[in-house]
């Protein structure tokens, strides 16, 4: 009944190559190559799209500083500085140059801070990685717990509440979650100190803020998958053999339900990166989200370009990895390949 899009479409994904006579290894490598090529294409197109969006920003800090009469640049100096940043070229030429530099790994120079953009990202990255990584672990723990309870609790109010919880998590703005966590746990209970944003307590609660909406997405897919597995004959057999309910869930329900859950975790990466913008602001952390926010207020186009494309690269890489591992994880596909 409530077959998710994810299951339907992951099945489509499990038979990536149509021709049946080639060896499984060859089919897999064809599939892998195609997925890698697609990913590269998506990253390049994302670069172009972001570039075109940012090109629509009226003005930039260089021009506004140059045109300020107090700085006293003469026309020749202005032209020199503009050409240093490549701003005197037509937009398509700028795009081609920027794309070429991007492919060589050069992300350009920040307009507002006169630092290489790569360095800016490198400095901010560890903080965001710690935050997003912790958040992902917390989100997985929360969804595992909700999934287990959704199968373990008898039909009734408690079960309904467990199943309703993801919707509540998804509907609550994450700035509200963050501010309430600070108010309750930092101010009232003094469990952590807001002044030290990188301390253990601050990091945990910031990660929790980010994890709650993400856990909702994962839990929804996980619970649906568990429900579908619970309706299978072998589950009934396991129950009729007298296995305890807890053991049925752990041994027979959770494992087959993990595959669609892995897929949705890949998609959640985007949510983690986008959500870090608000979470880092609330908890005063210096990460990629803060870099984006500063770049937005300074109209620092190279920094925006690099950070947004960087997020897209992370998202594409994680999902590529999941897609490549997926056929190897699923025994159903292996047996299908043996048959073919």
């Amino acid at each position, binding site marked *: 009944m409530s077959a998710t*899009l994810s299951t339907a479409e992951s099945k489509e994904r499990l038979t990536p190559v149509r021709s049946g006579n080639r060896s499984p290894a060859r089919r897999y490598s064809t599939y892998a190559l195609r997925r890698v090529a697609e990913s590269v294409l998506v990253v390049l197109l994302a670069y172009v799209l972001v570039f075109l969006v940012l090109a629509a920003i009226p003005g930039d800090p260089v021009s506004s500083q140059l045109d300020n009469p107090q700085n006293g640049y003469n026309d020749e100096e202005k032209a020199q500085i503009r050409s240093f940043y490549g701003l005197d070229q037509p937009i398509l030429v700028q795009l081609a140059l920027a794309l070429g530099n991007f492919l060589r790994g050069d992300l350009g120079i920040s307009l507002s801070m006169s630092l290489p953009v790569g360095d800016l990202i490198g400095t901010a990255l560890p903080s965001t990685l710690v935050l997003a990584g912790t958040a992902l672990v917390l989100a997985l723990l929360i969804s595992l717990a909700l999934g287990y309870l959704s199968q373990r609790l008898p039909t009734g109010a408690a079960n309904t509440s467990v199943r309703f919880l993801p919707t509540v998590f998804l509907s609550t703005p994450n*700035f509200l979650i963050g501010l309430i966590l600070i108010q309750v746990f930092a101010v009232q209970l003094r469990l952590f100190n807001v002044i030290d944003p990188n301390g253990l307590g601050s990091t945990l609660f910031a990660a929790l803020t980010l994890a709650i909406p993400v856990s909702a997405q994962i839990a929804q897919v996980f619970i649906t998958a568990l429900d579908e597995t619970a309706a299978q004959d072998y589950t009934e057999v396991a129950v009729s053999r007298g296995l305890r309910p807890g053991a049925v869930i752990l041994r027979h329900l959770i494992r087959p339900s993990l595959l669609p859950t892995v897929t949705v975790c890949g998609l959640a990466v985007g949510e983690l990166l986008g959500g870090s913008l608000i979470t880092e602001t609330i908890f005063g952390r210096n990460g990629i989200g803060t870099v984006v926010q500063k770049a937005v207020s300074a109209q620092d186009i190279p920094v925006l370009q690099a950070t947004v494309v960087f997020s897209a690269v992370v998202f594409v890489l994680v999902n590529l990895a999941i897609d490549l591992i997926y056929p190897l994880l699923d025994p159903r596909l292996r047996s299908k390949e043996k048959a073919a």
Partner: protein
Amino acid sequence: MTAAILTTDESAGGHQQSDGPNHAGQDISTGSGLRLRGRIPLSVGIAFTVLAIVLAWSLFPDLFTSRNPAAGVPNRKFTSPGLNYWLGTDHLGRDLLARIIHGSASSMTSALIAVTIGVVVGGLMGLVGGYLGGWIDAVLGRVVDVLLAIPSFLLAVIVVTALGYDTRNAAIATGLSAVAVFARLMRSSVLQVRTSVFIEAARVNGGSGIYILFRHILPNAVRPVLSLAVLQFGLAILTIAGLAFLGYGDPPPASDWGLLVADGREHLLHAPWLVIAPGLVIAIVVLAVSRISRWLDQGRNQ
């Protein structure tokens, strides 16, 4: 790639949960459009009531509060919620309830704009791609992949930066960041309908491509897209509130819900209601919307 990220968060949210076995047998499907039901679940009734109240706030704010949302009484500043001021007052002595009520029109309109953009642009992309197939579908599919690869909140942030900071532009940015989700769902829905026998019959009868597309395919494929649109309305409220919270919406003294939370943040320590009340209003409205979306969605998958 297309298949790889076919399930987005948004569409996943809408299609998963069945409402448990108790309501399953009572639906009467009328085939297309709205379904008749034996009885509306209590939670759906509450959700509709919540939406009706907010809609009334947006249309006739003065019926619900006589206080001016922009002018405060200075010696009443930071009054806690109570009988006189139900939700308390802010640092200028302005009534928070009045500000929430007067901010609802802007919050609801912008969510509506966002969803309309998503449905129309994304829907057309999915419709054309799914129906025509071939290279057009391939090109549109790549565009969708790219839009999905950029975290949607980041996409909304850079679009609103390019357009300029105000609530209308934040709505447009939110709509554009949701285009891909609609395009994908519409495409897969069209692909399903396209192979139906009645489409073949229409073609045998000599119907032209455009005629079949809009007369036969669109009405039959649009149903899941519409229930996604309801869900996206709720998510758009969240995204727009997030943008307003970061200061990318209308500046004060506007009272968009996200902006109210951002304003209240400075006073979190001694006046927590300034954050909690508008935040909860957002959460309750989004919750109501997603309940209705799930209710509309049930039965489609049964």
